[in-house]
């Protein structure tokens, strides 16, 4: 074996593997074992029940949509915070992290109070025929809220490290502003943007506390997957609950894997 430049590879790798095994892999394995209680037929029957399928569509659909919104708005916010100086910038910068710090139940109750038909915002939307709280739209709003900081915080440092020289070079070479952004800046930001997107997506899929207050939880309409798991547990059907959990995990893993592949591809594209 070739001598490595840095010492301590074996020790640190061993530590990493043991830690990951204990903190991440063990609970997941326990989940899979629990799910295997009900056998393949039971597993399949649980997953293809209309309630589970409807919740699956809502959870992943709303989470993807919320991640797209957060990617777009997050990029804009990161841009404003990095590129412009204005009074109160530091304050805004600190505000971005608040959705991280707030207990999710508090966020859910606050959002529901705002968007309920008699709430501050809901009362304005009601005459227009727009219902937010207790509809799938409410689920989306809560997911956007909890996932917001991720994109800002992943894109911001990359944007800060970009040299102005590149843009100036592009301009002197005759690129329009749009071209400079689309062909020079965006490719450099894309990997970070995708990381933020993936984190926001993962958070939104797993979110329970805030969504549960605003969703209304109407079967087939505004029930999220984590609620379906709670419903199974209320019937003491641990195996079925674990089965839904395993599927959520598998789907999330596939999505995150796809995003990481996309990221690798985008990095190569940026280097070209």
């Amino acid at each position: 074996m070739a001598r490595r430049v840095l010492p301590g590879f074996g020790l640190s790798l061993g530590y990493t593997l043991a830690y990951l095994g204990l903190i991440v892999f063990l609970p997941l394995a326990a989940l899979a074992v629990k799910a295997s209680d009900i056998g393949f037929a039971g597993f399949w029957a649980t997953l293809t029940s209309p309630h589970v399928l409807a919740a699956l569509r809502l959870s992943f659909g709303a989470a993807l949509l919320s991640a797209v919104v957060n990617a777009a708005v997050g990029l804009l916010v990161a841009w404003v915070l990095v590129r412009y100086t204005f009074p109160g910038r530091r304050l805004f910068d600190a505000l971005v992290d608040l959705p991280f710090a707030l207990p999710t139940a508090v966020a859910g109750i606050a959002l529901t109070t705002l968007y309920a038909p008699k709430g501050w915002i809901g009362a304005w939307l009601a005459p227009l025929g727009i219902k937010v709280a207790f509809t799938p739209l409410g689920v989306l709003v809560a997911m956007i809220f909890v996932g917001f900081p991720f994109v800002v915080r992943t894109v911001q440092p990359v944007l800060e490290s970009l040299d102005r020289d590149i843009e100036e070079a592009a301009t002197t070479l005759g690129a329009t502003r749009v071209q400079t952004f689309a062909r020079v800046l965006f490719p450099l930001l894309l990997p970070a943007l995708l990381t933020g997107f993936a984190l926001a997506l993962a958070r939104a899929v797993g979110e329970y506390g805030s969504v549960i207050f605003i969703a209304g939880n109407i079967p087939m309409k505004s029930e999220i997957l984590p609620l379906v798991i709670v419903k199974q547990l209320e019937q003491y059907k641990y195996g079925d609950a674990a089965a839904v959990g395993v599927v959520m995990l598998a789907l999330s893993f596939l999505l995150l894997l796809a995003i990481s592949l996309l990221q690798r591809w985008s990095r190569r594209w940026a280097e070209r």
Partner: protein
Amino acid sequence: MLVSLRRTLAGSLLWLGAAGAHAADISLLNVSYDPTRELYKDINSAFAAQWKAGRGDTVTVNVSHGGSGKQARSVIDGLEADVVTLALAYDIDAIAEKGLIAGDWQTRLPHNATPYTSTIVFLVRKGNPKGIKDWNDLIKPGVEVITPNPKTSGGARWNYLAAWGYALKQPGGSDATAKDFVAALFKNVPVLDTGARGSTTTFVQRGIGDVLLAWENEALLARQELGKDEFEIIAPSLSILAEPPVALVDKVADKHGTRAVAEAYLKFLYTPAAQDLAGKHYYRPYDEAAAKKYAAVFPKVTTFTIDDVFGGWKKAQATHFADGAVFDQLGVGK
């Protein structure tokens, strides 16, 4: 080395013996559901005082509160409850199925092991603007009904069964008409919160809905705390007798050596003193003196029991609330 170990052991045994001769400090864990917080606070101090006077031991009863199903799962997963006092027999049956409680638990204490009862009533806004008087007013178009999801809330299952039993007992009532009635009722539900307290918040704080289906004790408490001039309680012509049962967790009590005191605690719930406290906290007492004292508090409601109409909890759960069972067939949300 060996000698010193032996000496230490002897010393600690001596100390234990000395402690045993004095009055003991006993602690019990009562795992209960949400709205019993105020009730058990009073009952626990009354029980501790009585036990201290009789036996000289100090008993501290700790109570854990939460959704009934969640509490039962905690006990199954190893929360060491000496006694459980939950919202429905189904949750205690689930613990019994795991072998922690003897299978005949419901016959070990009087009245189906239920020291106090309640029923399902309606809470409406001041002046009852929608003119709600009975269950059949709840399925009228334009009436919004607030109730938690029966799949996630044990309390809400009582609401559902009360509505079903009412429809069933109407002239010409059958399972088919009851199913249509309950389906129509749930069509009028805009929000299905996961628990009873969530529904109360939706109705009271957010001003959503015209009528809240609630346990009588919750409705009376809400009215007491939130102002008598904001809400009115409507008693339907017919409702279900809600029986929140209690049980000794045999395995845990034997392990803790607390069986005697835990059994005494549960029996205490049936004494006039505890029955009076139940009435004070808006639960319907069995004890005649207490029932008479608080008669004015409780509206007159004719009730039926889950055993009579549904053949007990196990059957009701399988028929109505299991996956793919009647509640799932109602087409709620469509």
